[in-house]
Each structure stands twice: as C-alpha cells, then as structure tokens.
C-alpha cells in the first residue's frame, strides 16, 4: 500500500460516476423535443457569503461539462494505471499519485462548476498541481525552473481571470438577480445576461479580453506558449495528462463554457476575424514550425499540442463551437496515446532518453504494440479519414471557411500540412531507419546531457530499481503500459464516429447531446425545478436561422443561453482536398526524412550551414523565435531588474535618507538647544557623536535608551504644541 491504489480507485470511481452522468444526460437530451432547450442540471449550495455576495459551490451539468468530465476521468484513470509501472520505485511515488489525484479533483471541480468562484478554485488547484508535478524530480535544477516558469506564466494570465470575473460580476449581477434569481458569478446567469442585449458593450468586451488572457496562459497560446514545452521536464504521465489532454484545454473549456460572453464581447461571427481567431491561427502555425526543429520527441508532441489547442481556439473564435469542443474530445485520446507511447519508448527502449536523433530509430520491430498505437494516433492527429482527428479537425477548418473566414481556413490547411509533415518526421526518426544510441543497445550514460532533464534522476531511481542495472536491449513495455495505449488507440480510431458528419444527421450524436440549442427560453426555474415548468417559445422557421433569435441582439421573449450558430454542410470534395494536403505533407516529409537521416543525401545534409537564409531560419526556430530571450533576458533583466533595484535604492537612500536626515537635524537641534539655552549642561555625548547614522555604525552604546526617551519627550512636547496650535487656528 503506497497510495497509488487509492489514486487509481478514486479515479475509477469518478469515471463510473461521470459515465453515469453521461448516460443520464443522454437520456435527457433524447427525451427532449427537437427545438427544445435542454435545461442543464444545476444544484448549488451556499458556501460562504458576505455583503450580498453569495459564494456557492454547485454543479452545472450539461453536454459540455459531461463530455469533458468523462474525458478527464477516463484519461486520468488510464494515466494512473500506466504510472503504476512507469514510476515504480520512484523516490516520491506516493507524492506523485497524491498530486496527480489532486489535479484530477481540481479539474473535475472546475468542469462541474456552476459559478466562477468554484471554477477559479479548480483552475488554481490545477496550476498548483502542475507546479508540483513538473518539478516532481526537483533535485534537478532544470526541472525546478521549468515548474516555476510554468506556474508563473500561467499565473500571469490568471490576473486576467480575476479581473474578468470581477467585471462580469459587477456588470451582470443586477440583471441575473432580477431575471434568473442567481448571482453574477453563476455561469448560467452570465451566459443568459451576455445574450440578453443588456450588456454594455465596452464592459463585456473588456471582460472577454481579460478572460481570454487567462486562456492564453493556461492553454499555451501565443505569446505565452513558451512554458508548455519546458513543462515536458515533468514525468511523461504528467505530460500526457496535464500538458496535453486535460489541464491545458482548461482555457479552451473556459471559452466554450462562457461562450456567450466571448460571442458578444469579441463579436464572433462578425466580419474580419477577432482576437480569439487571430491568436489561435498564429499559434497553429508558429508552434507547428517549431515542432520541426525538435530532437526531443516529447517536445515535438508539446508543440503539436500547442498547435492543436490553436485549432480549438480558432474554431471557437470562428463560431465553430461544436467542432472545437469535439476536438477537445478526440484530441485527448490520440495525444494522450502519443505521449504515453513516447513514455513507453523511453521506459523500455531508449534508456530514459527522449532524444529521437541519438537514441531512437528502427523501433517498430521491437515495440510492435507501441508502434501500432503510435501510428493510429499519428494518423488521427494528422486528420486522416476515418481516424478521429479527421472528424473534428476537418470540421473546424470547414466551418471556419463556411463562416466566411477564408484566410483563416487557409491557415488551418497550412497547419494540417505542417502537422502531417512534422509527425511523419518524428515517426520516421523514432520507428524507422537504423537503431541508434540507446535503442541500439548502447548503454551509455554520457549522452544524457542532451536528454530530457529528468532522465538522469529517473535512471537512478526507477530504472535501476526495477531493472537492477542489467544490460538490456530495447523491448516492448509491460501490460500496465501497453493496455492503456491500446485502449487509447482504439478511441483514437473510433471516437470520431460519435460525430461523423459525412454520414448524415443520424451520425451526429454530439450535436444532439452536447451542443446547447439556441432557442429562447421563458425562464421560470426559480419557481420550479430545473428542467420543469419551462415554457418554450418556439421561434418560427424564418427567424430560427437568422442571427437575431439568440445572436447578439435582444431575444424577443425570455432569455437565451446559447448563441445561434450554423454548421457547414459536409462536402466530400472539401474533405478530399484536405486529405490530399495531408498526404502531400506526409509524403514530402517521408522523402526528405529518409534521404536526410538514413541515406545522408549530401544535397540535404548540412543544408542549413550552406545556405545562409535557411541557416538563419533554422536558428530562428531553434531559438524559439527568441521569445524566451525576450521574456527572460530583455523584459526581466533590463526592465524588471532595474525597477526592482531602483525601488530598493529608493528605499535605502531616499526614504531612509529622509529618516536619517531628520534624526540628524533633530539631534543638531537638540544640541543647539542645549548649548545655547543651557550652556552649563553641555552633553558631551550629543556633541561628540555627530550623526544618527554614525551612532548606528558604532552600535552598542550604553546610553542609547536614554536618548530614546529624550526623543520621546521632544516629540511629545511637539505633539502637545501642535495640537494646541491646530485648535487655536481652527477656533
């Protein structure tokens, strides 16, 4: 009993409960009429209150929360099972499982939250766990630094969350109290308020921007994405759970959760793009480009995660709510699978190295299960039909175009091309070609410098513990590792069919279950229970497809909880086009990779050294666009340091200087008084010790306390005189 049982058991219970919630929710939506708004199941209790603020804890169960709930509980369970093997013998085994379970608890609380306070609670717990888990092997300074960097970057964004919550509360509270009987923290209240046509447009825009800043930090969007690749210093299960499939989608989840706020505040569906789309699009491309120059397999996956999160943001920004949310779902499975696969390789084949160039290659033969699951997940990530990524990612791209954002659609397609190319490169380096380094059986510790930082510690801890230094070659991992991989790869293949638009309406289950229906609701929930006593105002057919029903304009009657969105009609021709792009990317990358890495084609090897422009570009990428340099060297070194130094100088010299000067002159004054008024009582000590500062330097003088009482007497008499003067002047 080392604690892991407790973790696995609690996650499994969560999974069972969330599956039950999912089942009930599906029943609820199935029984609702076509054009009916399916009321979320909301329960809340008062946690603490103050001055009219009611901080509740409660649940808000609807399609979105159930979906993410199941994803989180499911991946958490699998990752914990995987960790049983992966971290066996670790020196902080129990600590690891405790933190992992606390993380899942925080995330589940955030997903279920019915109000922004509870949301914030979960959000912050996740940040803390991320800090603890990235720095799990904190003996190594690089890990500790990465943990702090992650925490601090995310925390910078969190300021936006606090401000956003405050703005929303003050703007929405009156309206929500009056119309829905809930506080301005309530997610449901805020959503309805945003669509009511009431909000002051400046307030809601600022609130949306503030909240989005928090999402940028948490979901690793440009320009705050730099923490995520560094976070790979954590153990691989952590990267798989927190930094790819669950925690980092919290920002996306926030946008999806409070979608009406962003919809109105940032003018989604308006012409010409908005902040969310722009950030998402930039993120897709810049991080995909970075994935090409990584040698560390986990870093490739990290940049890929950043890029995929960019897709989700792009989708949300372009009004493709459902595809973006669906992408959270599918992405979780295939990305978790890829990360766990990378972990499997390092655990059993490459001697705890993540370096594709030096320690991998040709692993398809020795690790068949890992290889097959990897290939399935890669195809899913690239969006190849009929793998799950196709149904979500292609939908995003398609809908972005359909909503009139052609430029952004092209960015999406370019991103798809790049994704296919860098994943092919990574796959080639890992599984094809000749085995190199540790994978070839070289049991060298020397090459560890270039490895992921935690490898050294891991090698001493877990590795030697269970393999006791045997000179072992690469082999397939144990069942505790491969079973989660297989389960995830099945889902990476199959989960897309839950919303398979190509096959018609009947296959679009997610649309039925998850997407809130944009209809006006004459709300009477505060008189009856949720879901009951609803009077549905069915809009007539013409109105229902115009923006005005539940768009940014005021609903005619009742309230709206979701904006009216449209779905692109699936066309095989468009799908074929993106397929061709993906295959082109794969083929090109395959040819280049095999020529460069295996055949060492002289035309390609050293190209970056020979052609200056390419060299510069490569250097630019290797240095991650110099963003880290900008943050750490330029902003921190040249701005924050001088400010801090100046502040401290101000403290020591100006403020204390005034004090010392004051003390000095008081002393001089007292000296003058003694000498001139009472010549006979010349106090030698007062004359001799010239300044207060000097007396401080010489410190221990026995008469100090005596002087203090002199000062005291002086100040008190001054006070009395001052009081008299004040009173006399004012009477």
């Amino acid at each position, binding site marked *: 009993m080392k604690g892991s049982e407790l973790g696995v058991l609690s996650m499994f219970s969560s999974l069972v409960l969330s599956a039950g919630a999912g089942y009930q929710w599906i029943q609820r939506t199935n029984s609702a009429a076509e054009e009916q708004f399916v009321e979320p199941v909301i329960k809340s209790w008062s*946690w*603490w*209150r*103050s*001055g*009219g*603020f009611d901080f509740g804890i409660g649940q808000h169960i609807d399609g979105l929360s159930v979906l993410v709930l199941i994803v989180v509980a499911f991946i958490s369970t699998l990752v914990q099972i995987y960790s049983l093997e992966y971290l066996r013998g670790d020196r902080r085994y129990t600590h690891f499982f405790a933190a992992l379970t606390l993380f899942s608890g925080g995330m589940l609380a955030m997903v279920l939250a019915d109000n922004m*306070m509870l949301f*914030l*609670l979960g959000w*912050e*717990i996740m940040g*803390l766990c991320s800090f603890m888990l990235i*720095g799990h092997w*904190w*003996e*190594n*300074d690089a890990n*500790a630094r990465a943990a*702090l960097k992650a*925490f*601090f970057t995310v*925390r*910078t964004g*969190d*300021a936006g969350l*606090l*401000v956003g*919550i*405050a703005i929303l509360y*003050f703007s929405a509270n009156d309206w929500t109290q009056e119309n829905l009987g809930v506080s301005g923290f309530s997610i449901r209240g805020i959503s309805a308020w945003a669509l009511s046509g009431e909000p002051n447009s400046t307030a809601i825009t600022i609130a949306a921007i503030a909240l989005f800043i928090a999402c940028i930090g948490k979901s690793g969007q440009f320009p705050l994405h730099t923490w995520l690749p560094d976070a790979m210093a954590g153990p691989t299960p952590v990267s798989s759970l927190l930094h790819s499939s669950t925690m980092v989608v919290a920002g996306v989840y926030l946008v999806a959760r409070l979608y009406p706020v962003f919809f109105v505040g940032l003018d989604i569906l308006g012409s010409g793009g908005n902040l969310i789309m722009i950030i998402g699009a930039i993120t897709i491309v810049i991080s995909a480009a970075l994935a090409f120059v990584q040698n560390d397999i986990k870093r490739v996956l990290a940049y890929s995660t950043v890029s995929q999160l960019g897709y989700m943001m792009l989708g949300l920004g372009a009004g493709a709510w459902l595809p973006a949310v669906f992408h959270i779902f599918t992405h979780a499975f295939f990305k978790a699978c890829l990360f766990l696969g990378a972990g499997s390789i390092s655990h059993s084949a490459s001697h705890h190295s993540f370096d594709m160039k030096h320690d991998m290659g040709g692993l398809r033969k020795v690790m068949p299960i890992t290889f097959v699951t990897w290939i399935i997940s890669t195809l899913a990530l690239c969006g190849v039909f009929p793998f799950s990524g196709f149904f979500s990612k292609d939908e995003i791209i398609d809908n972005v175009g359909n909503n009139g954002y052609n430029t952004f659609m092209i960015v999406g397609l370019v991103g798809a091309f790049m994704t296919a190319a860098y994943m092919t490169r990574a796959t080639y380096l890992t599984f094809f070609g000749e085995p190199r380094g540790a994978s070839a059986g070289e049991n060298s510790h020397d090459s560890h410098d270039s490895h992921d930082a935690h490898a050294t510690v891991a090698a001493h801890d877990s590795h030697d513990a269970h393999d006791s230094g045997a000179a072992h070659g690469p082999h397939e991992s144990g069942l505790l590792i491969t079973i989660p991989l297989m389960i995830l790869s099945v889902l990476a293949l199959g989960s897309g069919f839950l919303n398979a638009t190509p096959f018609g309406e009947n296959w679009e289950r997610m649309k039925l279950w998850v997407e809130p229906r944009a209809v006006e609701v004459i709300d009477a929930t505060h008189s009856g229970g949720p879901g009951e006593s609803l009077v549905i105002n069915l809009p007539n057919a013409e109105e229902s497809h115009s923006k005005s029903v539940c768009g940014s304009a005021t609903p005619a009657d009742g309230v709206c909880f979701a904006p009216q969105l449209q779905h692109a009609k699936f066309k095989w021709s468009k799908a074929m086009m993106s397929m061709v792009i993906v295959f082109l990317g794969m083929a090109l990358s395959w040819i280049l990779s095999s020529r460069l890495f295996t055949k060492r084609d002289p035309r390609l090897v050293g190209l970056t050294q020979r052609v200056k422009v390419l060299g510069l570009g490569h250097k630019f990428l290797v240095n991650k666009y110099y963003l880290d340099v900008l943050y750490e060297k330029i902003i921190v070194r040249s701005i*924050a340091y001088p*400010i*801090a*130094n100046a*502040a*401290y100088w101000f*403290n020591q010299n100006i*403020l*204390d200087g005034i*004090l010392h000067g004051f*003390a000095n002159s008081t002393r001089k004054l007292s000296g003058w008084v003694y000498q001139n008024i009472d010549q006979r009582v010349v106090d030698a000590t007062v004359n001799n010790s010239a300044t207060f500062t000097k007396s*401080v330097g010489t*410190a*221990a*003088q026995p008469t*100090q306390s005596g*002087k*203090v009482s002199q*000062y*005291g007497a002086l*100040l*008190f008499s001054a*006070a*009395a005189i*001052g*009081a008299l003067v*004040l*009173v006399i002047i*004012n009477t």
Partner: protein
Amino acid sequence: MNMLQENNWLLSLGTFLPMVGVVLLMLMPKAQDKSVKLVALFTSIATLAVGIYTAFRFDFDQAEKMQFVANETWIAVIKSSYFIGVDGISLPLYLLSMVITLLVVIYSLDHVPSPGKPKAFFSLLLVLQTGMAGTFIAQDLILFFVFFELVLLPMFFMIGVWGGEQRQYASIKFFLYTMFGSALMLVAFLALFFKTGAESFSIPYLIENGGSIGKNIQIWIFAGMFVGFAVKVPMFPFHTWLPDAHTQAPTQGSVILAAILLKLGTYGFVRIALPILPTAAREWAPYIGGLAVIGIIYGAIAATMQRDLKRLVAYSSVAHLGFIVLGTFALSSQAVTGAVMQMVNHGVSTGALFLLVGMIYERRHTREIAELRGLQHVAPIFAGVFTVVMLSSVGLPGLNGFVGEFLILIGSFGPARWWTVVATVGVVLAALYLLWAYQRVFHGEPDEANSSFKELTLREGLLMSVFLAIIVVSGIYPKPILDRIEPSVVALIEHVEGQTK
C-alpha cells in the same frame, strides 16, 4: 449605539491576566528558569481560555453591537474613562493575539534567544499581550493610546536586547518611527477632543459627534491620525522600519510584530479613523488607496530582490498590508469585511512563515537564500508545512488567504476600479517571489551543510499544526468568521454612508 453590558468583567480579566503572570514572574528568583517558563505558559493558557470563553459568550446574533461593555470613570480631569467592549471586528483580532502569544510562548520554552534571561523575556511577552489585547478592546481614545504605546516598549526591548547584530539601529528606528506617528496621532486625538466640545474621549461619543466637525478641519485631523496608523501598518512610504525591525528581531518578536502589531494600525483605521471622520475618510480614500497599491507593488518588487529570507517575508508583509488598507478605504462592506478577515489571515500565515524562517535560522544559522538548498530532500515534512503556509500567503483558493484577498479585490473593484486592477498584479507577483524563494531553498540537491538539516521536531510540528488547522479550516469554511465580522462592518459602512450623503 446599543451595547450589551453582561459579563463586563470578562474583557478586563482576559486583558490583565497576563499582568498577573508578570507580577508572579517578578516575584520569582532569577535562577528558576523552569518555573519561570511554567508560569508564563500557564498564564498564556489561562488567558486564551478566558478569550475562548469570551468568544463563546459573545452573542453572535448581535455581533454588530459592542458587548461585554464596561464603562468606569478613570481620569476624570481629562474626561477619559475606562471604557471597553468588543464587537465582531475586534473579537477575532482579540482572540488571535491570545492564540499567537500562547504559540510564541510554547515556541520560546526551549528557544529563548541569546542572551537568555528568560524571566525578562517572558515578562515582556506577557506585557505585550496585555497591550495588544487592550488596544483591541479600548473604546476610549486615551485608553487606546495608552495600550497602543504600551506595546511599543516591550517590542523595543525585545529587538534591542534579544535581536541580531544590528539590533540597536533597528530598535531605535522602530521606536522613533512609531513615536513620530504616535505624536501626530495624539495631536489628532486632542484636536478631536477639543473640536467636539471637550466632552469625552469615548469612541462611541466621538463617532456620533465627529461628523459635526467642519470638513476642512476633519481633513487635517484625519491626516494626523492617518500618519500615526500608517506608520504602524506600515504603509508605503513609512515602511522602512519594518524590514530592519523584522530582520533584527528574534523569531518571537517577528511573529508577534507581523501577526498582531501591524494590525493595530489597520484596526485603528477601521475602529477610529473611518467612523469618527467619515467625510475626511471619503476625501482621503483615493490617495490612500493609491498609496496602498503602490505599497502592494513596491513591496512585491522589493521582496523579489531580497537575498535574506526573513527580509523577503517582511517585504511581503508590506504588500499584504497594502491589500488590507486598499480594502479598508474602498469603503464597501465586502472590501472592509475582506480587510478585517485578511488582518486575521495575514496574522496567521505571516506569523507562521516567520516561525518557519526562525526554525531554518536556528538550524542553519543563516537566512541567506543562496546558502540554503535542497531542504525538501532532508526535511520533507518541514517543506510540506512551509508549502501550505506559503500558499496561504500567496492566496491560493481553498486556503484562508484567498477569502480575504478576493473579498478585498471584488469589494474594491466598484469604488476603485483601476487601483484594483493594478493590485491584481500584486497577486501574481506574490506567487513569483514566494515560489521562487521556495524553489531556491527547498529544491535541488542539498550540499553538505544542508544535508544535516533537521526535520521538524514533534513540538514544532504540533505548534505548526495549529497554524495549519486555522489556515485550512478558515480557508475551506470561512462562513463562521465572516458571519461574525460582517454585521459590524455593515453597521460601520452604513454610518459612513449616512454621514457623507
């Protein structure tokens, strides 16, 4: 104002019980260290028991009223009376002072700082306790002033005698600064007395009649009071005594200083300055809010730069107290409730931090961050306790620091929007300087000097578990405390609003 007079002996008992202990200590022969400690321990336990009994007898349904009120003639010549009582604002602080004193006494049982002299040391601790408790119950300005000043001397000697190398400088700086503030405060009190017709120094009387003073005079009187309290808080730019005093003070002194003494200033704002001079408070509020926000950011930046762990915590106090002052002068009931709550929270978490830093110093004889490394490796429980306390100070949701901080932020958002947004940056910075320090001290491989770092002893662990219990319980379920504080604050805000409309 309605007042409840039942059990009016309780507060006097709770406040002056430590003095009985002091008398006993004085009568004891010097050599008997053990019995000196026992007397101090039992006195502070008895004091806390009285305090807890007081809290039980406190009528929470009427928390906005002064309770256990006693009003006796004291110095008839200047119309000052022995007038005491507690309400929902003072009760938590009154109780906190007793809890902290007891914990500090327990810690001191085997940690009397050099040069020893336990008899004098414990006597000072107990005198300090009387002064602190008295300040929180005084309902007469002169009585308040006497207690306020009573605190000064024991602390001065504690720093000056038991302090670090530069104790002379630090103690004189502390004394001078506070005296300077006190002088101005006294001017203000006297002026208040004369301007309300030289009738009484009683706070309830002045609250009723203070509003009749002309606006211009109010503003001047308020300025005097403000400086007096601001030095004690300390607010930027009157804070420079604090880092020196903290660094030089013995651990016990730092804990009491941070946990209780600093609150005397913020308590003075809430109890005296705001209700007596509401018009002036309104006028000054934007400027004071500005100073508070400067303090938040400035304290955080300065804390980031510190190489000495104790100095870092000291500067973090400047930032945290900036939050409290910001909340106080936002003049909304949430913000003021949050500010009072945060007074208690800061007392607990910063007190605990100073205690932990003291334990580090005692083990390693250094507080230089650069000298410490990898302590989590050798003392995981110590590190765990430090983590929780630090996170409470950072304001992580679920721990006590968050409740007060969030109430302050959201309560100040309406009245002082932009100040609040800037203050939010302080929340971010708090995470930076504390976690960064934590990482440098606790993470990494310990070198030789640090690898023999001792784990928490049982007694230290029990001591810290009291702090942890308060941190976790009031973080998860702050309702009982908030429900006590709020009625008094609402009454206060109503009074201020009634006067300024």
